[in-house]
């Protein structure tokens, strides 16, 4: 089991958004999060990634095994594609394998400044970061935003490889990635609004 979530309640701005969630994501499997805008997909992913504390419940996974990718790519506009990737590789103590450029169709863009890339190309660069940091459990927030159909297929292919290699992922998305993965609709877990969180943010 690479990720186990028990009775998790997570909050945004001190108000609980989702409550009493329990699910398992075994190694080699993905979980697709579904739900309308504002239901709390991002909040859940940020809580799982450890960026914000849960109000209650537990998230169990191996230490230093997860990675998070948000709406924003974390791409530095003034650095080239290669420099951007090399930076993240160094942070995680890896090299940049040449195959990454082919996997995410970045081969012709290596020396281009990231600021001159299109939105979709930037997104592919952001996703290439995930491939090179080699984390097992991925928390992905709308990974396919601004990708064209071809790039979505590239990403789905890579994700399939990641899962076959024993990795796992929790993905919030509105489109069909073509992955053979269970879907979790978040609507039943919406917290009742009179529950207030234990966070001090409500007083700020």
């Amino acid at each position, binding site marked *: 089991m690479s990720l186990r979530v028990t009775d998790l309640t997570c909050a945004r701005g001190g108000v609980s958004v989702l409550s009493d969630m329990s699910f398992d994501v075994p190694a080699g499997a993905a979980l697709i999060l579904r739900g309308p805008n504002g239901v709390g997909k991002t909040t859940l992913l*940020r809580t799982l*990634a*450890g*960026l*914000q*504390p849960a109000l209650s419940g537990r998230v169990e996974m191996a230490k*230093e095994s*997860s*990675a*998070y*990718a*948000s*709406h*924003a*790519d*974390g*791409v*530095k*506009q*003034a*650095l080239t594609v290669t*420099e951007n990737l090399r*930076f*993240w590789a*160094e*942070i*995680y*103590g890896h090299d940049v394998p040449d195959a990454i450029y082919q996997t995410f169709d970045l081969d012709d863009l290596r020396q281009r400044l990231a600021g001159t890339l299109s939105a979709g190309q930037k997104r592919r660069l952001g996703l290439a*970061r995930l491939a090179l*940091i080699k984390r097992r459990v991925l928390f992905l927030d709308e990974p396919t935003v601004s990708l064209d159909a071809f790039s979505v297929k590239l990403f789905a292919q890579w994700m399939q490889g990641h899962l076959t290699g024993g990795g796992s992922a929790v993905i919030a998305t509105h489109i069909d990635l073509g992955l053979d993965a269970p879907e979790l609709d978040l609507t039943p877990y919406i917290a009742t609004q009179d529950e207030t969180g234990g*966070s001090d*943010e409500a007083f700020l």
Partner: protein
Amino acid sequence: MKAVFIRDVTLAFRAGGGFGLALAFFLIVVILVPFGIGPDRAILARIAPGILWVAALLACLLSLDRIFALDYEDGSLPLLATSPLPLEGLVLAKSAAHMVVTGLPLTIAAPALGFLLNMQAGAYPWLVVSLAIGTPALSMIGAFGAALTVGLRRGGLLLSLLVLPLYVPTLIFGADLVRRGADGLSVTVPLMMLSVITLGAVALMPFAAAAVLRINLR
């Protein structure tokens, strides 16, 4: 940490990176002061250490909000926060980069500007020493302020208000060190006090800044 440091220094030198902003500001203030004060060389010599230090401090303040705000805007800050690099290390690396990009050029340019203010000959070595010891403290304390205001739009005003009082001890002892050097007095006390402030800031501020970053990233 090395990767973050190198990236931040590289970014500062690229287009729109803001290198030279602090230096240009420092230059402008110090050049304008003699015009405002008038050509009395005795007065200029007397106020030179204070003016140089105040100008260096304000120049440093100018680029503080860039330390974390840029990473927050493009989304790399949460990604770095979930990376194996501890946030304390991130703060240290980013303040070190800020120091190299702003504090170091100021230290190197200061003697030339001291000449414009008719600073006494004995003060030059101490001006360089005081800025070399003092600017790391300015960057470290500033990083804490930048971490506090990271999520705020136009947080620059709040950042200045928060950081300026914390800068006062550095300013007092830094300027005093140069003044005593100029008058040929013993500089031991301000030199030690300035070093203590810098060492204390380097030791404590990464933890404080990392703690407020964690809260701000929630």
